[in-house]
């Protein structure tokens, strides 16, 4: 059994102890979507990791094939992160309230950091011009997804943008990055762990924002379900490509869409 608590001789300390579950809803959302919450959270897992990893961590010896696979994979992650950065920055203006606007601003900073650490890692792995390499190796599906996502933002469609970015893209990245972190070299793994910690906030914001919206506007469900079916193929194809780049056989791959399908089922968008 995993430890869930320890004995105490301090008497009834727990009755007066602040517990998050006792907060009222407004206080909870005010807390978790604040800049101070974001700052203290990221400080916890990024302090001393300027490019997402401990600089004292030694580089593993990677053979040429392994190195090329990681570079290809990270290049495609960069397309996804660049899409997220550009979309999130545009969504700051679309957000329907200050609470969401402030959260999106923290997401912009997160996505910029992700892009930076992945580009830095690609450079560390021997690529002279990481940006050019990203363009050269980008999977067509993720490039097409980025274009479609930015169209939604440019159209001013907040709900569709939240779905495409914070539910679809973020949930799939969450799945892929968690899996990749378990199998990657130590430095790449630590970088991915930090990104996954950020993604938790992003995908949670997306599901909860859309969930609230659909409770109040159930008629929007059909439109979002239709959009989901259009976008699924692009993103799922792109991440299947990422697994191909990592050299994983079909039976070795995690269920790529499971977390995503669970999320859309909770939202009633399975179609």
């Amino acid at each position, binding site marked *: 059994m*995993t430890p*869930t*608590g320890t004995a105490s001789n301090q008497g009834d300390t727990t009755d007066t102890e602040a*517990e998050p579950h006792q907060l009222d809803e407004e206080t909870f*959302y005010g807390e*978790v979507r604040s800049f101070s*919450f974001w700052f203290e959270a990221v400080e916890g897992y990024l302090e001393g990791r300027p490019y997402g990893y401990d600089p004292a961590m030694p580089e593993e010896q990677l053979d040429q094939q392994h190195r090329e696979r990681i570079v290809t994979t990270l290049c495609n992650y960069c397309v996804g992160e660049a899409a997220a950065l550009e979309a999130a920055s545009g969504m700051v203006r679309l957000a329907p309230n200050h609470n969401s606007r402030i959260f999106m601003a923290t997401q912009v900073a997160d996505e910029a950091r992700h892009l930076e650490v992945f580009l830095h890692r690609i450079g560390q792995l021997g690529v002279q011009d990481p940006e050019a390499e990203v363009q050269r190796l980008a999977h067509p599906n993720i490039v097409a997804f980025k274009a479609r996502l930015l169209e939604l933002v440019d159209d001013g469609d907040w709900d569709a943008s939240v779905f495409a970015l914070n539910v679809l893209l973020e949930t799939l990245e969450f799945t892929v990055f968690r899996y990749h972190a378990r199998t990657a070299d130590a430095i790449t793994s630590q970088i991915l762990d930090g990104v996954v910690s950020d993604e938790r906030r992003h995908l949670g914001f997306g599901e909860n924002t859309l969930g609230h919206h659909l409770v109040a506007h159930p008629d929007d469900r059909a439109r979002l379900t239709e959009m989901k079916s259009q976008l699924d193929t692009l993103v799922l194809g792109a991440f299947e490509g990422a697994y191909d780049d990592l050299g994983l056989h079909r039976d070795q791959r995690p269920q790529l869409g499971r977390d995503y399908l669970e999320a859309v089922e909770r939202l009633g968008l399975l179609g």
Partner: protein
Amino acid sequence: MSDIAQIHSTPDSEGSDAEPEEPRRRFELEETGFKEVPKRWRKFYRHWKGEGDSLGPNEVICPVCKVVIRSTREFRPGDRVYCMPCMSRMVVVRSDDGSLEAKVTY
């Protein structure tokens, strides 16, 4: 023998409409190395360790981000819980297999 330590039991019926009113066990939480929320909230969450890990009576898994949510008191169906790492609001429900799980509410 479980290493879950009971501090005391007190009558506590909050959020437990569907179950008999029995005293809830209380727990003093310790930090487990979880750093994805500000310090004052860290002990209320931990990472799921995968195969071999299990949940205590004061723990449920967040279905959105897979973090383990913890409380100083034993959970009961109807309890409200918040997952701060992913900002989700949930209610504790009894699943078909009899275990407690968190269901997202919007």
